[in-house]
């Protein structure tokens, strides 16, 4: 590190706004890309990033981090953990890499949006490091799964998934493209870094790292916790933007951006992280339930951060808190039932012991979700696997692009929230999903869900095999039950003993 303390010269590195005269300020920072919202350049210069880092510090720290993560991988390579890991854990990794790796790389584009177009010089510099960070996250999370492509064709999806029209890939892109690739610089700082990265990456990278350590997967644990150290730094770019927006009369819009991003992130996590944490991760390695993680990282910690900044908890906070008990169970049931349509092998997570744990963590689970799994279990144990496999496609939400789910059992409550807009009928999985659409109908109106494409004849032949082909799933890629129904057979044994 250089001799003179950083504090003495750091401000000069961000004294970089000037008044253009060969082109206009509006040309240099088009509103569409910059999103200054009429707040003058001089005000944006007061943006003060809480986490400060300089170039020489960055390359040194990051070189060391990489040395750590790559050496753990190299040291454990011969150990071939993957070959003896529980199939549920393998599915966790496959789902994670396919949904995350290439989107991390795409996040570098969003960071570059801020690095070029933010009117706040501190934001522009930090976003250069953010661009580099996301380049790292894309690369390292491709390099690690690539070592496994020789094992099984599903590992190919770590790279391939985002290039396909597989439904979960569409849902992931629909979220990330909306909040990070199709937004101006200031909106990116709020919707991606503040809203998504502050709360949700903790869930995915720290929560999952805890499970990974428990499962003995030290390579994955060290990888994703190392990724999170970068997220924790560059997630802090949104806070100063929010302060400036709030102080300059844009609180309402700031709140709206936060609310949209949190809701959409929650829905994606309910299908990705929820099943991973509560069903795929082998029971003995689950550190906390998905709900417990959500309550800790989102409901409690994130809400505190919102309040600290002078924002409110999103208007749907009560709905979300309630949904923590239900949504991801429905998503999981859907993913498992439609297992040929995903690139990983969903673990049912419905053995007798699993169900005991679920009932403990989610009282009432047996009376609701458990009933569906009873039917599935019976069918499997009566050699009627065919009845546990799909023939059609589920109804899909026009916002989250995920199946519309409800809670089964006596209180069966699935509800389609509809909206007619410009003569087209849209379907939503919740009030909040519909609300997200209503905030900016132009942005969403033309988009077609997988079902819309199916009904309009874009998917041919118009049946399940046609849909699988459309989604890019071939034999050997389509998901199957991770444990080949051993969990169901356990009930048969139980019955015999009794």
């Amino acid at each position, binding site marked *: 590190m*250089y*001799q*003179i303390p950083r504090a*003495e*010269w750091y401000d*000069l*590195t961000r*004294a*970089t706004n*000037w008044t*253009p*005269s*060969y*082109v206009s300020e509006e040309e*240099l920072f088009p509103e569409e890309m910059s999103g200054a919202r009429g707040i003058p350049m001089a005000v944006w210069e007061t943006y003060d990033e809480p986490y400060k880092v*300089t*170039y*020489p510090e960055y*390359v040194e720290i*990051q*070189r060391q981090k*990489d040395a750590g993560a790559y050496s753990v991988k190299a040291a454990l390579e011969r150990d071939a953990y993957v070959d003896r890991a529980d199939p549920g854990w393998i599915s966790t990794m496959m789902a994670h890499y396919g949904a995350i790796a290439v989107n991390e790389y*795409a996040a*570098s*584009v969003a960071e*570059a949006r801020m*690095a*070029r177009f933010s009117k706040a*010089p501190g934001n*522009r*510099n930090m976003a*250069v490091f953010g*661009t*580099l960070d996301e*380049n*790292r996250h*894309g*690369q*390292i999370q491709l390099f690690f799964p*690539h070592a496994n*492509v*020789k*094992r099984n*064709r599903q590992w*190919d999806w770590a*790279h*391939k998934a985002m*290039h396909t029209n597989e439904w979960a890939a569409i849902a992931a*892109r*629909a979220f990330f*493209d*909306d909040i990070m690739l*199709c*937004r101006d610089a200031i909106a990116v700082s709020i919707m991606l870094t503040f809203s998504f990265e502050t709360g949700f990456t903790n869930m995915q990278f720290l929560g999952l790292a805890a499970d990974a350590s428990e499962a003995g997967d030290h390579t994955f644990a060290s990888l994703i916790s190392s990724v999170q150290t970068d997220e924790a730094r560059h997630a802090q770019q949104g806070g100063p933007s929010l302060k400036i927006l709030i102080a300059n009369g844009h609180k309402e819009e700031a709140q709206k951006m936060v609310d949209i991003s949190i809701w959409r992130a929650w829905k994606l996590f309910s299908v990705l992280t929820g099943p991973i944490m509560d069903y795929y991760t082998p029971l003995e390695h689950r550190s906390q339930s998905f709900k417990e993680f959500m309550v800790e990282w989102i409901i409690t910690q994130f809400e505190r951060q919102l309040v600290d900044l002078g924002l409110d908890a999103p208007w749907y906070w009560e709905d979300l808190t309630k949904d923590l008990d239900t949504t991801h169970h429905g998503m999981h049931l859907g993913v498992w039932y439609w297992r040929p349509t995903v690139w990983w092998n969903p673990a049912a997570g419905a053995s007798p012991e699993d169900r005991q744990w679920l009932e403990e963590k989610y009282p009432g689970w047996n009376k609701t979700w458990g009933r569906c799994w009873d039917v599935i279990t019976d069918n499997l144990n009566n050699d009627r696997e065919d009845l546990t496999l799909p023939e059609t496609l589920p109804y899909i939400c026009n916002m989250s692009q995920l199946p519309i789910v409800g809670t089964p059992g006596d209180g069966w409550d699935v509800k389609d929230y509809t909206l007619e807009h410009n003569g087209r009928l849209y379907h939503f999985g919740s009030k909040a999903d519909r609300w997200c659409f209503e905030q900016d109908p*132009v*942005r*969403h*109106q033309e*988009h077609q869900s997988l079902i819309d494409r199916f009904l309009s004849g874009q998917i041919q032949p118009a049946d399940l095999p046609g849909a699988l082909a459309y989604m890019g799933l071939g034999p*050997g890629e389509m998901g199957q039950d991770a444990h080949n129904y051993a969990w169901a057979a356990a009930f048969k044994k139980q019955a015999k003993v009794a």
Partner: protein
Amino acid sequence: MSDSQTDTLKPLKTWSHLSKQRKRPSEYEVVSTNLHFHTNNPDKPFEVGRDAKMNDWYIKYRNNSPLKHQGWDAFRDPEQLIYRTYNILQEGQEAYVTGLLDQFSERGNDQMISKQWAQELNRLYAPTRYLYHALQMGASYLHQMSPASTISNLATYQAGDHLRWLTHTAYRTCELAKTWDGIGLGENERNHWENDAAWQGFRELAEKALITWDWAEATIVFDVILKPAVSAAVQKQLGLAGAENADTLLSLLNDAQLRDAERHQRQTKALIDFALTNTDNAPIIQAWVDKWQPLADKAINAYCAALTDLPDAAEEARAYAAAVRQSFGLK
């Protein structure tokens, strides 16, 4: 269904999209290739409604660029730079620079220069933080707009390098001000950048480059026109002027940055060679060069006119820039 259709897909040795190439993919290829899924559908880049405005920006300035290629994704960085190796490389380079700064601070470099030179530095060196920052912003634009991840990545690391140069300038400005208090170091740079005749050519070129939205034209303006001119006039000639004025530190620091600049030039050459595999592109690129080169010459002339110790500075700088263009196969 025939047997071949129901056969389980066999595992491959690498990603399916790389498995057709004969060469075993390098680590660079495994982690860098075909990552921009938003180039897959040329009519609608993003998974939002078609009416979302960002689609138009990418269709207009990326997908519909006059520069065409069958498959930009086949481009490969000749340096095979990835994140991991970039940090190894630059941590080493920064250790070298830290050593330079320490040594010259011990030797009293700043006490040995004249007040007149300190004033020249205030006017001709300290304002580089604006120029380098403009390059940083330009690279960040190229990153988000390039039609292949392997092209974007060139700009990713280049943006980092430009922030590196800016950081050197900020640090040296602060250090110089400790010895040469009261001459405006750390205060007057913006005024010089906005008003001093020496800077106006570079500022005009930088501002106009920054609003060049077509990704390919922007690449040419930054990497073929502006950056070589900066290297020629500001890094090279100003460094020589430093040596003339007992400021060895400046010339060594600038030389250290030129190693980054030369790497950028090798990457640009490879990108242009790749683009020229479509012969339709040659006149397009040359027309952009012809359009922008006069602004670069003007910038070089204005800046070098201020380097009064070096009467040949402008001519040498223009020759350097011309040699870089020639190395790219351009006039």
